[in-house]
């Protein structure tokens, strides 16, 4: 086996030194009844070239070369080449969690830079080293708010990503944390502020909203914060599209921001690995889950970095920890750090502006035919928008697929009241020609006799 660095003679030599007659001696402790005396029924050993062939064939079956208007929590942005050159350096790729600070300063400094960039972008004081993804991060944020406030209820906007809400429900169920839902304004697609005000009480630990929300609409964070804070609840803002922060005002009134950073240079990869991250106001650090890197000095006074405030974590506190999280998404956070360094202060704004422009062009082009209208059109949006069509999505999406275009995603699976509505996304990747083609196909509904 090509990954195993031992010759048969070396194995024999080692066994002899140990004093074992055969390798089976070392497994004698496993009762005979439970020893596997046959080959595992898995595919035979493959040559490297065969492995590549197998996955290429699988990729081809996936039907590549489609233009896509899919977003909804997973966004296709251009990924600068140097991200993959750098993260594939073995020193990053094959290193462990940096518990031994003297020989992991590379990872530690990079995480410190990541924490700084996330804090800068979100307007929070501090950020952690990463969470699994945006959905689990939002759930952990709600649990954190319960610890901070000592309250045990939460209110969630129905415009938070439906799958994030499902994950929150799974976590909250066993935490004694009932979740109330605040609906949306049918005209604007924003959270219904009056309904929110009714839902938030003196028992509410947290209000969780997403901005831009699942419909792509930017929420009025200062107004939502005022409602939450008036009752002593914390405001958690979930951000599923991190690139929006280049142009959308950061949620500085929030107490906790839970973000999905996939947009920062991370491949779609059929939904993972992505990169959650949590940021918060300074006073809540000790209730924050996940790893934190802090700056310190060594014996000679040189600057260095260490994992810190570990008394929050499971390996020290066991059942009293803030979370059970251990492994996070370190290498993906490094991708995000490199992405943000490539674009920098000006580039992230310019990139966000391109997204905004493409989405506005697409929304207009796609909704110009008679059977199609843009929902929530008056509200500020980033790069996603909702179209309502007279024709059923199944019909036009088939026509689009014939043109090698994947249209917006149907919303009725989560919002049955929205009928034929679909959620569309236009990032900087999509071209004007693709948008125009999609508009033409969408408009070309067969005439009913």
């Amino acid at each position, binding site marked *: 086996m090509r990954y195993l660095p031992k010759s048969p003679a070396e194995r024999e030599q080692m066994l002899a030194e140990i004093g074992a007659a055969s390798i089976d001696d070392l497994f004698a402790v496993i009762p005979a009844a439970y020893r596997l005396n046959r*080959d*595992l029924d898995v595919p035979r050993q493959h040559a490297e070239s065969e*492995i590549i062939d197998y996955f290429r064939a699988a990729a081809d079956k996936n039907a590549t070369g489609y233009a896509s208007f899919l977003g909804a929590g997973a966004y296709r942005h251009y990924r600068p080449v140097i991200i993959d050159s750098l993260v594939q350096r073995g020193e990053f790729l094959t290193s462990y969690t940096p518990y031994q600070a003297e020989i992991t300063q590379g990872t530690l400094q990079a995480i410190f830079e990541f924490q*700084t960039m996330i804090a800068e972008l979100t307007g929070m004081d501090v950020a952690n080293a990463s969470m699994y993804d945006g959905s689990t991060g939002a759930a952990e944020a709600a649990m954190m708010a319960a610890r901070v406030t000592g309250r045990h209820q939460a209110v969630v906007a129905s415009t938070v990503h439906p799958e994030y809400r499902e994950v929150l429900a799974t976590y909250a169920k066993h935490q004694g944390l009932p979740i109330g839902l605040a609906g949306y304004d049918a005209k604007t697609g924003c959270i219904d502020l009056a309904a929110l005000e009714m839902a938030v009480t003196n028992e509410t630990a947290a209000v969780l909203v997403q901005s831009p929300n699942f419909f792509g609409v930017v929420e009025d964070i200062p107004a939502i914060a005022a409602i939450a804070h008036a009752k002593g609840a914390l405001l958690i803002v979930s951000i599923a599209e991190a690139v929006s922060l280049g142009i959308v005002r*950061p949620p500085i009134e929030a107490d906790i921001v839970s973000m999905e950073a996939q947009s920062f240079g991370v491949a779609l990869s059929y939904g993972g690995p992505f990169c959650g991250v949590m940021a918060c106001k300074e006073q809540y650090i000790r209730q924050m889950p996940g790893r934190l890197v802090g700056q310190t000095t*060594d014996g000679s006074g040189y600057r260095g970095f260490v994992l810190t*405030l570990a008394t929050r974590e499971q390996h020290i506190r066991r059942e009293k920890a803030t979370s059970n999280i251990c492994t996070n998404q370190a290498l993906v956070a490094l991708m995000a750090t490199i992405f943000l360094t490539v674009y*920098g202060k000006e580039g992230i704004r310019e990139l966000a502006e391109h997204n905004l*422009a493409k989405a506005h062009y697409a929304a207009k082009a796609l909704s110009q035919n008679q059977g199609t209208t843009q929902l929530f059109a008056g509200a500020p949006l980033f790069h996603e928008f909702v179209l309502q069509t007279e024709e059923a999505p199944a019909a036009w999406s088939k026509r689009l697929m014939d043109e090698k275009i994947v249209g917006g995603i149907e919303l009725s699976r989560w919002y049955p009241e929205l009928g034929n509505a679909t959620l569309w996304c236009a990032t900087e990747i999509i071209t004007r020609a693709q948008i125009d083609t999609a508009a033409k196909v969408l408009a070309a509904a067969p005439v009913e006799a």
Partner: protein
Amino acid sequence: MTSNAPTLATTGKVRPHQTQNEALVFEKSSPGKRAYKLPPLDVPPVDSAALLGAAHRTTPGLLPELSEIEIIRHFTRLSTWNYAIDLGMYPLGSCTMKYNPRVNELVSRIEGLAEAHPYRPDSLAQGILEVIDLLQRCLIEITGMDAITLQPAAGAHGEFTGILLVRAWHQSQGNPRRKILIPDSAHGTNPATAAICGYTVENLKSNAEGGIDLEALTRQVDEETAALMLTNPSTIGVFESRIARIAEILHAKGALLYMDGANMNALVGKARPGDFGVDVMHLNLHKTFSTPHGGGGPGSGPVACKAFLEPFLPAPVLVQNQNGTKCWEYERPQSVGRVRAFYGNTGMFIRALAYILANGPDGLRQTTEDAVLNANYIRHKLEDLYELPYKTASMHEVVFSDKRQAALGVKTGDIAKRLIDYGFHPYTVSFPLIVHGALMIEPTESESLEELDLFIAAMRSIAREVEETPELVKTAPHSTRVSRLDEVQAARKPVLRWRPEQQQAP
């Protein structure tokens, strides 16, 4: 020899070399530098301030401004400050730091897989669904279980999912039950997991051999016990040979057996948890199945279970249509719910499957045998100098204690730091908690005889230093860019981000 005179190791693995200084990326920034170029905008520009109104960002985040070559150098220089599997043995017990094959990286980046959107129609995703299906079938075969979910993002997330399955099953029997039994040798994630699933944690004291005390277990298991969370082989690297009896004791009271699969590298191809009474378990693809640790993640923590737990798996579940195509099934009325958006860390599934394909049944078995052989070789070569608290046969890792060295004032943490000077990453320090001053060593199968002998020579040399020049060990490492860092200062006055006004340290 004093602590001020850094001493080079003499085992032949290392020599000093230059390392470059590198400031924080923010300190290298200067306005107007660019590392990006967007294509010309092919749609009319928009007035973002007018469109966004009050929601328009007016103050940009202070991101750095650098050119491409500076970014390459910045992160490359940082990388040279890391130790890595690619540089040498990484004997962290419980972490399974094995070789991360490069073909895994290549295939996970094939465009049709890497660029697949999670909401693309199933008809356009058959290739990736087949990959997921094949991995699921392989992992079910390897564990001897009946069903699996790949949704959990890491080991601890898998534990959470597995205990939710346990809870949902008990609930379906009328009572979710109250407590989870956890041996005192367990990973910290186990009790933390039980707590977030709403269970009380009850500690199970290990017996004199470091294993499960059957009498204590029999005493403690009752009608309020939901499950025992057991790591097998245990955290001292010992196979629990009475595992079937343990399962019997639990099952007699209606409790379930959860297995933490962190140490599965000792079992693949040799024994299957499903055959010895385990009801539910998680795997760590980033340990046993060679996906890279990446400095702390991403991982992937599939959960495999017996058929009676299958209805409770997180939704969606991969199923086959009548025409042979595959799709996701969302209607799962008994499901514990979702534990993550989308379907899991798919990029890790691709890598793990590439590893299984590269090995085949014979390679997987040989891998396990070599991992166990390596650990036993180290044990044999060091047990005369380091105390072996439990004499039971070792599987894939060996746990010593610092008893003899501590008597001379040198602790396991010091010995670990001194290993760095010899060109090795430290072993796992002070864990498991049942061994006072533990040195937990897991070589994995990836080490050659030459590298093992260098490690053994280093450990023997350090044992000698403990007797002759203890200060040298207690102040190690001496050859790194930074010496021991002030962790107390870091925690007392946390500096968790750079700020512009901050003074640049030397």
